[in-house]
């Protein structure tokens, strides 16, 4: 699938085929895609634990359910728990930045050298940053968000459906026994959609001009209708929800899966 169409097709899928397994190869592809996300100082804070729902002891599955996500956890055959490893910067120190210098990604043309990394970047910027928990958390989690978005897009590119949910962080850490410095982020539920791929249409978004600006915050970025048309042709901007027949589709799924209306 072309990139723009993958972006256009992605939407939070909440009805999965509960008994249709997901190929291991596709799960690996999702993880490989997350690993290639952009990451500040090449630290890579995101960690993932993949769980096959049916291999999880029922008491653990029940423990992980939140009131809002109980049903989707039952429906999705694969759950990927994402964590943020806050300990990584102190573990690797500046070594991954040195790798970037060696790889020619960070070059003297832009002021970079091994000595700059060793003498300044780690001891004077990165290490102190980890001691300011509020700022550090925001930076690390934003980084994880980018990697998780890569993972989401990969799922759709593989013909799967997916959505992110927020688990109970304490329970998640307890169930999986993760290190103390891992912060629980999201669970990505993965499976084959039981709903149509349109899932009722592209979900509502705030107006473009409310979100993006040019030069200053008072000047909305001017949206060119020709670009919009081009993106529609590339299936990135799609018909908005609700598409005709969406309510009938939900009712049919409710009847099939035994869910309330």
């Amino acid at each position: 699938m072309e990139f723009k169409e993958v972006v256009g097709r992605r939407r939070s899928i909440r009805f999965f085929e509960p008994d249709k397994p997901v190929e291991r190869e596709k799960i690996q592809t999702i993880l490989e895609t997350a690993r290639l996300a952009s990451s500040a100082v090449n630290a890579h804070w995101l960690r993932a634990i993949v769980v096959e729902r049916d291999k999880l002891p029922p008491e653990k599955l029940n423990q992980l359910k939140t009131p809002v996500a109980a049903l989707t956890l039952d429906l999705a055959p694969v759950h990927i728990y994402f964590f943020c490893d806050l300990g990584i910067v102190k573990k690797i120190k500046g070594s991954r930045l040195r790798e970037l210098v060696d790889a020619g990604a960070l070059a003297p043309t832009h002021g970079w050298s091994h000595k700059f990394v060793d003498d300044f970047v780690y001891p004077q910027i990165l290490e102190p940053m980890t001691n300011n928990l509020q700022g550090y958390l925001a930076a690390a989690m934003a980084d994880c968000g980018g990697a998780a978005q890569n993972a989401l897009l990969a799922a759709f590119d593989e013909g799967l459906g997916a959505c992110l949910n927020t688990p109970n962080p304490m329970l998640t850490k307890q169930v999986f026994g993760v290190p103390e410095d891992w912060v629980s982020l999201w669970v990505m539920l993965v499976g084959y959609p039981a709903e149509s791929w349109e899932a009722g249409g592209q979900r509502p978004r705030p107006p473009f001009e409310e979100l993006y600006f040019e030069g200053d915050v008072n000047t909305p970025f001017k949206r060119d209708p020709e670009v919009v048309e081009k993106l529609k042709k590339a299936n990135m901007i799609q018909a908005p929800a609700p598409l005709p027949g969406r309510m009938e589709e939900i009712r049919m799924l409710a009847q099939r899966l035994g869910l309330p209306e």
Partner: protein
Amino acid sequence: MVLAKPISEYETVQTWLQGLRAQWGVEPDNVDARLDMLRHFCEFVERDPDAVIADCSREVEGGKRIRIKSRRLYSEKIAEFQSGAGGDARAQARTGNLVRSFMIHNGIFMQAGVQG
């Protein structure tokens, strides 16, 4: 327990039926059967429909809060009511879901899991 008035006259029952109409864009089918089943549930828990919903929420400054313990209790009561209902597992699930639908359209978030 006998309800003090016809079940359709309770405010929460009207909210439920209006919610079904608004959600699905059509008049709910089998209204009498739905109301009859809800009435049976109310008898089962010995509370009228408005009281059931009131039990599950409380007014706080700035709006309403769900009473988690009460919701859990009613969730268990619905499961119990469902398992004692007639018919096969699918029919029993429909019975439970009918009561859950009443709760949901009155703002009491509730999930039951896959029962297909």
